[in-house]
């Protein structure tokens, strides 16, 4: 068997964003070592500059429609991959800006923090392009290794170490399940590329293999019953890492889930719809009910995140092109609202060194801006019009209605009511309760940028969603063959806003 590897300039172009980021993270690491007196904040801005370049490159890919596959279809660049890469790079930029103040508190290894964040972002960019089970395994592990270290980053803090341990054990366990599942699928089909493993018959090996792969990806997105690491890891990890962990890997894992379910498993849709409906109902209900009892804002957002993942799984369960669009749009709304909420938690945590919900009492008196921003983000997460979360939920429910998943929609609507309760408890504490310490809070410029970006995104997607809808509809064009009844109309005209 001869093996030739030829890469033309056009092939390398497809890898340009990843190569840029690779070079840039080496630059950041070298600068950290070579210039010990350089203030570490500069490394943050240097990282953001590099990521901005990568973002510009990706936007160019998207506008010019550059695409193709590399390395025997292992690596694919299409509109879907570019969408998720923009999502990941955008999240990373905001997370790094939100980290600047927090990293000043570290006693050691301030510079390496930015390197590890960039490294995880690189891994997730590759995840978005993974088109084969081998690249799924490697890229998933690649991005997770950075997170293992980041979660346990506060060496002197036992909670951070413990969070790192729990994340690590469950993470490697999930990796074992993933690898074994892949080996079974390989055993049944002899192939690993997503489009090649679309087997016509469901043999036991294939079923068990895909269930194991789904379990591993379920760990990654934190869907019930694979959620057990989420609350503890989110609670113990440094807050900017929690924010990063709650958004970017979810997006990257959904890129893989969409490709797996919509390409490889399209023929078995009746079988996996039940699986996804179950996971979705469990995630929404469990996340929202347990969130009510939380006293710590990071744990509250962790459980709310589990519930949000349940909502996104509705789109996957719909299994149509419109379901895919809705997932992408929902992820965008989730990015702005959740990252914004975490930015407030980071800002308040930096100032008062506490993440207890009690300490948000009277936040409105201490900083009207932070309280108002938190109000907007929580209402968007709950799905109140005219904010982004409302359009996201509406879009996902419409996709489910087309497929007749009425039970799922009923459970989803009940859950919106439940979630409203615990979000509003936080709002009540911020606006009505008296502060124990009325001294005003001030926030730094980079943090302000993150909060303003979150507010702008949440309001823009809520009031004028049409450009974003057009973008996500274009990103999933390759799934048009999964046409449900509604897919005949290419653009969705929502009753409000657009």
């Amino acid at each position: 068997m001869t093996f030739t590897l030829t890469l033309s300039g056009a092939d390398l172009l497809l890898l340009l964003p990843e190569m840029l980021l690779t070079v840039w993270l080496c630059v950041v690491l070298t600068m950290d070592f070579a210039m010990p007196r350089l203030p570490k904040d500069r490394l943050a801005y240097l990282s953001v500059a590099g990521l901005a370049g990568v973002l510009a490159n990706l936007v160019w890919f998207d506008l010019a429609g550059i695409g193709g596959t590399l390395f025997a279809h292992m690596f694919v660049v299409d509109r879907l991959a570019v969408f998720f890469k923009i999502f990941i790079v955008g999240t990373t930029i905001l997370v790094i800006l939100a980290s600047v103040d927090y990293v000043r508190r570290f006693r050691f290894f301030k510079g390496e923090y930015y390197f590890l964040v960039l490294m995880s972002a690189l891994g997730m960019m590759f995840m978005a392009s993974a088109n084969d089970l081998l690249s799924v395994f490697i890229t998933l592990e690649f991005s997770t290794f950075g997170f293992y270290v980041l979660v346990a980053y506060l060496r002197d803090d036992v909670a951070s170490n413990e969070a790192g341990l729990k994340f690590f054990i469950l993470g490697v366990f999930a990796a074992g399940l993933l690898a074994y599942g892949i080996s079974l699928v390989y055993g049944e089909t002899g192939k690993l590329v997503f489009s090649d493993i679309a087997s016509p018959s469901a043999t036991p090996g294939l079923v068990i293999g895909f269930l194991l792969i789904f379990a591993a990806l379920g760990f990654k997105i934190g869907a019930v019953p694979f959620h057990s690491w989420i609350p503890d890891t989110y609670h113990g990890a440094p807050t900017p890492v929690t924010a990063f962990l709650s958004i970017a890997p979810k997006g990257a894992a959904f890129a893989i889930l969409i490709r797996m379910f919509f390409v490889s498993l399209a023929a078995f849709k009746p079988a996996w719809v039940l699986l996804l409906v179950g996971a979705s109902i469990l995630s929404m209900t469990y996340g929202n009910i347990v969130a009510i009892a939380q006293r710590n804002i990071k744990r509250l957002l962790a459980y709310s995140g589990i519930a949000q993942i349940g909502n996104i799984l509705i789109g996957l369960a719909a299994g149509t092109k419109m379901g895919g669009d809705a997932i992408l749009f929902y992820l965008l709304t989730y990015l702005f609202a959740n990252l914004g909420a975490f930015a407030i938690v980071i800002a308040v945590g930096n100032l008062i060194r506490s993440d207890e919900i009690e300490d948000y009492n009277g936040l409105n008196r201490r900083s009207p801006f932070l309280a108002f921003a938190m109000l907007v983000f929580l209402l968007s997460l709950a799905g109140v019009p005219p904010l982004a979360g409302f359009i996201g939920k509406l879009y996902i429910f419409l996709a489910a209605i087309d497929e007749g998943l009425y039970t799922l929609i009923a459970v989803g609507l009940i859950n919106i009511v439940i979630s409203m309760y615990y979000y509003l408890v936080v709002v009540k504490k911020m606006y009505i309760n008296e502060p124990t310490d009325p001294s005003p809070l001030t926030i730094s410029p980079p943090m302000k940028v993150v909060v303003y970006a979150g507010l702008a995104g949440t309001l823009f997607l809520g009031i004028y969603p049409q450009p974003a809808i057009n973008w996500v509809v274009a990103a999933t064009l390759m799934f048009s063959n999964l046409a449900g009844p509604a897919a005949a109309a290419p653009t969705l005209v929502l009753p409000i806003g657009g």
Partner: protein
Amino acid sequence: MVPLSYYVILSVIVFVTGVVGVLIRRNIIIILLSVELMLNATNINFVAYSYYFQNITGQVFVFFALTVAAAEVAVGLAIIIALYRSKSSINVDEFQLLKW
């Protein structure tokens, strides 16, 4: 010649041993070793199937799985050392600060 099914049965036994080890053992090092067993079961499967299909893809996967396993141990041991410094123990039951 050993039939394919023997290899698959062996790999299932090794994999289940690994899963049970992760779930019931309390020592972190043993848990880490159990995860290695799970990955090695994968490798047995891949090599056996690769030979059966006369297809090189499976063997390529084994090399990557070995690399990932090695990297996992490096990161895992670093976390375990950090924990050992603060708690002088590597028993998972000792780590109950956060509600599990």
